[in-house]
């Protein structure tokens, strides 16, 4: 944790601030949300690292997708993700967004999330403990340092791919494409 290194702050304040002020979209996508209250309250206190939940996606820069994603939720997730301002990071939480987990044969939950929105990091487990969240966050710090947490860039670059996948799942998304001039 290099929060106290002032020289880094002067070198790249935006990146440093993005690292140490994760405002999380409060979206209980799945059962993983049950470990979010413990990690933001007394016991684990995520606010130590500047992680707090915020009300709307406009103010957030981290999207924790906590658990399995049903199709109905996926629509809301895409909407919310597109409303977040860049730079934005997505961390999928639990096994289910990776490959469907134990719901691999469920007709209503998607199997892999990264076909629909880009994911910067996965925290595996069912369910991951609060400590795992913090380990995930430290990994995300490293990724940000290495400029590898570039999900939002990929989304912009491959928007046609993602949009095609989304439209294949939903007949009608209900909102126009986010980027007009996206290329595949």
């Amino acid at each position, binding site marked *: 944790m290099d929060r106290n290194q002032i020289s880094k702050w002067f070198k790249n304040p935006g990146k440093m601030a993005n690292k140490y002020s994760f405002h999380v979209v409060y979206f209980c996508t799945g059962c993983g949300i049950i470990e979010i209250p413990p990690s933001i309250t007394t016991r684990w206190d995520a606010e130590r690292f500047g992680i707090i939940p915020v009300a709307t996606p406009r103010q957030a820069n981290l999207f924790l997708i906590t658990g399995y994603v049903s199709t109905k939720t996926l629509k809301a997730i895409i909407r919310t993700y597109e409303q977040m301002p860049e730079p934005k990071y997505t961390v999928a939480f639990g096994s289910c967004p990776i490959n*469907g987990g134990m719901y691999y*044969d469920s007709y209503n939950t998607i199997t*892999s999330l990264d076909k629909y929105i880009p994911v910067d990091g996965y925290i595996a487990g069912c369910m991951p403990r609060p400590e795992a969240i913090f380990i995930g966050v430290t990994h995300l710090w490293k990724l940000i340092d290495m400029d590898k947490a570039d999900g939002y860039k990929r989304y912009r670059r491959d928007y046609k791919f993602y949009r095609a996948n989304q439209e294949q799942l939903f007949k009608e998304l209900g909102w126009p494409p986010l980027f007009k001039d996206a290329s595949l």
Partner: protein
Amino acid sequence: MEELKKKLLAYFTDLTIQIHDDYRMCINTQKETVVSLLNYLKNMGYEHFALLSCIDWIDKGEFELIYILSAYMEVCDKYQEKEQGIIIIKARISRDDAKVISVINVFENAEPYERELHEMFGIKFEGHPRLTPLMLEREYEIPPFRKDFDTLKYVDNTFGKIPSIEERKANYERT
């Protein structure tokens, strides 16, 4: 329980009633009788509509509707035998022409159950004001809870195969 059975048999003609030792009463009836039977039982004090379920007996080409009733307490702080009783009403309908009269006029809270069964089994409840989708976002050709709905096949067709790590890497590095 026995008294109730006698009364029911006196009142309705097309019932077969079994009573199990754990206060479960099982009533088999026709779908036309269900509403009046529920009404009668409600007036008898079995006011708690616990569950409306459906079983897909695909071999016989029938759906079996299960209505489960129990009773609230008559006196607030005294436990009687009646609350222990559970009445399970069964009615079979044809699988091809799945239609049944809605019971929401008898029990208000049957509404979401009927909506759900409509969505999951494709049973049409006549007289229900809003048979709109409840749970599902997508539309399914076969309602998913029917036995002939193959989930694995559906998942492979719709959500695609789960990409391996190599595929994911390739996807990430795609330019």
